[in-house]
């Protein structure tokens, strides 16, 4: 099997004030990668107008684009409209489901969505007590279960999980530990580990670090723009070892 180059970024937080800037940085991306994954927080306020800016910046690229939303994209209760605007521009948007991207003889399976928080094993909230607490934790548990099923059903040569929230603490290093429960949940890692994946890409933790790993050994990459400090990073999934 040949190797596969995946470009990834998150937290581009686009809006009118930066229209056109990001698009310029995507020039020539087809020479570096075969697909672009965008891990949420596409906008700043989550308005449809900002969603349109995102659609303009990411549309008609020479390579397919797969995206998920982030918490900012939910802020104005326009998440559904934003998804529509992006899909109309030819961008695949995952919402707790999966897609198979055919790439010149290889099938790349991508599963995921926004994700949510709750914390990490041993230091996390549980479904106990007040209804508000239970609802918070249940939201993440249900998302994780949908991702597990989405991954399980994927028929592909390579599988990647695309999320906004983090599945592990490793990639949060640099953030205050007190806010870890709002940055991710181990349930997302557990779902990926249960079905297996080659890579787990996320954003959200602007002050975090790029590299980590799930307990089951899946490589985790925090590609938030302030972390990677590049327009995107490219990960090369190994085919026969010459990647």
């Amino acid at each position: 099997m040949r190797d596969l180059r995946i470009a990834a970024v998150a937290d581009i937080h686009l809006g009118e004030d930066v229209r056109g800037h990001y698009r310029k940085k995507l020039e020539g991306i087809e020479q570096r990668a075969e697909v672009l994954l965008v891990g949420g927080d596409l906008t700043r306020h989550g308005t449809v107008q900002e969603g349109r800016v995102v659609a303009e910046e990411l549309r008609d690229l020479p390579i397919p684009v797969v995206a998920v939303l982030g918490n900012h994209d939910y802020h104005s209760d326009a998440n559904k409209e934003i998804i529509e605007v992006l899909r109309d521009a030819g961008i695949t948007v995952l919402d707790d489901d999966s897609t198979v991207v055919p790439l010149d003889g290889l099938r790349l399976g991508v599963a995921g969505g926004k994700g949510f928080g709750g914390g990490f094993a041993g230091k996390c909230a549980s479904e106990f007590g007040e209804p508000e607490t239970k609802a918070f934790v249940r939201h993440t548990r249900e998302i994780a279960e949908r991702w597990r099923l989405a991954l399980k059903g994927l028929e592909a040569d390579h599988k990647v999980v695309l999320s906004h929230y983090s599945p592990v603490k490793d990639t949060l290093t640099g953030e205050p530990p007190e806010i870890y429960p709002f940055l991710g949940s181990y349930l997302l890692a557990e779902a990926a580990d249960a079905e297996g994946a080659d890579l787990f890409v996320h954003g959200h933790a602007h002050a975090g670090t790029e590299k980590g790993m799930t307990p089951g050994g899946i490589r985790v990459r925090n590609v938030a723009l302030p972390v990677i400090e590049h327009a995107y990073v490219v990960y090369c999934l190994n085919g026969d070892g010459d990647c």
Partner: protein
Amino acid sequence: METPHYAPHYVAARVQRVLAEDDRTNELGIRVDVRGEELFLRGQVSSDERRHQIEDVARETAPGLRVHNEIKLVEVREPGEEEHL
């Protein structure tokens, strides 16, 4: 009236919350530190306009404090070396 001087321990927390919730900013990743009469803003945003908006909102929320805007612009360099997994 806002009286930050009577509750100095809460000024930083309040500014941080307003920066997240005010629709002009909606910035969650800004660190706010208050030392005496000085307020320090740190973090990264992607445009100069956003830097200034954050400073304006912080000034409004903590009148009487001297605001030091140490927020940096996010660098978006051309993509570099790829990582082999």
